[in-house]
């Protein structure tokens, strides 16, 4: 075991307080005495450790504090984005899960599905086809921003000049459902669904949704059953059917 005075000697050597003669003699001993040399090296390392520990204490504290905050922020944010950040291919799956849950809930509680669960309108874009008429623009904007009352009026204005625009008629009917003017809405939708146009079955689907909103479930079900398997709205129709 090292004697106490050896440590005093180590200290004096490290603080360069030894005379030239003492220094050389000490270095000479280090070469010859293994135990001394080992103890000195350990002493030196611990001296360095302590020096580092105390001179960087404040900086280390600041670093640790900052690190802690960043880490907390990162993990809290991660939890949030976990919910929000859906990948596109997950939308379909998520939608069906929601729907499934919805359906299960309806079955469990004996409740009927509601219109708003199924009424997801595609954004209208009348002007995409090169029609830069201001009236069309306004109508489109009103519909896409859910201002259905305004949209219905603008669609009517368009139809005065162009009574054969089936698409505009369809959207006028959707707007009417939204503002609960079912009689007018149903009349238009029935007309479209009895004609042969691209909107035939979409109109039937919306007619069913109108009945749903009016809580006429039997009518709704009958209409849904008339939607054939090769149409865009078939899957939605089937989902609503199983929820009824």
């Amino acid at each position, binding site marked *: *075991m*090292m004697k*106490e005075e*050896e*440590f*005093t000697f*180590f*200290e*004096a050597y490290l603080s360069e307080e030894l005379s030239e003669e003492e220094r050389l003699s000490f270095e000479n001993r280090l070469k010859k005495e293994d135990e001394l040399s*080992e*103890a000195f090296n*350990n*002493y030196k*390392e*611990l*001296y*360095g*450790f*302590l*020096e*580092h*520990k*105390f*001179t*960087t*204490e404040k*900086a*280390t504290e*600041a*670093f*640790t504090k*900052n*690190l*802690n905050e*960043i*880490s907390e*922020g*990162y*993990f809290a944010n*991660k939890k949030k984005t976990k919910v929000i950040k859906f990948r596109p291919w997950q939308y379909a799956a998520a939608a069906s899960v929601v729907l499934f849950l919805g359906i299960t809930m309806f079955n469990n509680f004996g409740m009927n599905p509601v219109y708003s669960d199924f009424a997801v309108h595609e954004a209208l874009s009348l002007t995409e086809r090169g029609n830069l008429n201001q009236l069309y623009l306004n109508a489109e904007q009103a519909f896409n921003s859910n201002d259905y009352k305004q949209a219905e009026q603008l669609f009517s204005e368009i139809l005065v000049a162009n009574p054969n625009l089936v698409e505009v008629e369809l959207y006028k009917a959707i707007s009417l459902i939204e503002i609960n003017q079912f009689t007018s809405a149903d009349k238009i939708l029935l007309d479209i669904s009895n004609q042969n146009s691209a909107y035939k079955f979409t109109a039937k689907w919306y007619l069913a949704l109108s009945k749903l909103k009016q809580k006429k479930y039997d009518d709704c079900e009958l209409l849904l059953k008339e939607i054939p398997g090769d149409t865009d709205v078939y899957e939605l129709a089937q989902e609503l059917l199983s929820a009824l």
Partner: protein
Amino acid sequence: MNDKKTHCDQLYIVGLLNNDSIIVKEIYEKFAPKVIHYISRNSGNEHDANDIIQEVLITIYHQAQKNNFKLTCPFDAYFFLLCKRMWFNVLKKTSKKEVTINEEILSINDDASLLAFETIEFDERQQLFEEMFQKLGKACKDLLKASFTIKSLQEVADKLGVSYGYVRKKKSLCVGKLTKLVQGSPVFKKIKN
């Protein structure tokens, strides 16, 4: 090591050293997910990953501060190896089950493993030193703190109301005591080269 080229990821080391929030955040964004994933799949959870990441970053910070640390490999590899190793240490402590130590860390065959190995060794020594320091009596702890914080021993002596000679002697004896504690520790015998 000095002849090897410093990797451009040294910027992360410098960022840590400067306590640069932007860089620290970037480290989290870029490198934390892999660690979280790994720990979650190896008997841990996100909370454990959070602790390990912080511990590893503090270790890197200390090592960089002290040894003029030079990163010679991608930060990702170095950081991930450290997190893995620290996590194994936690598992070893908390469970009686035999934990397989990853072979990557044991075979020193590339820069990342070598650097990670050095850092772990550094960390083990620092932890032991700190543990032994805490075992010293209050008088020694206070004197060492004062004499390493206030550079002039005369000032320390004035502050403590003792003579310069006493402070100088006491300082060397306290560091000596710490040296003995460390040398006598079984952990030290295991980790010393």
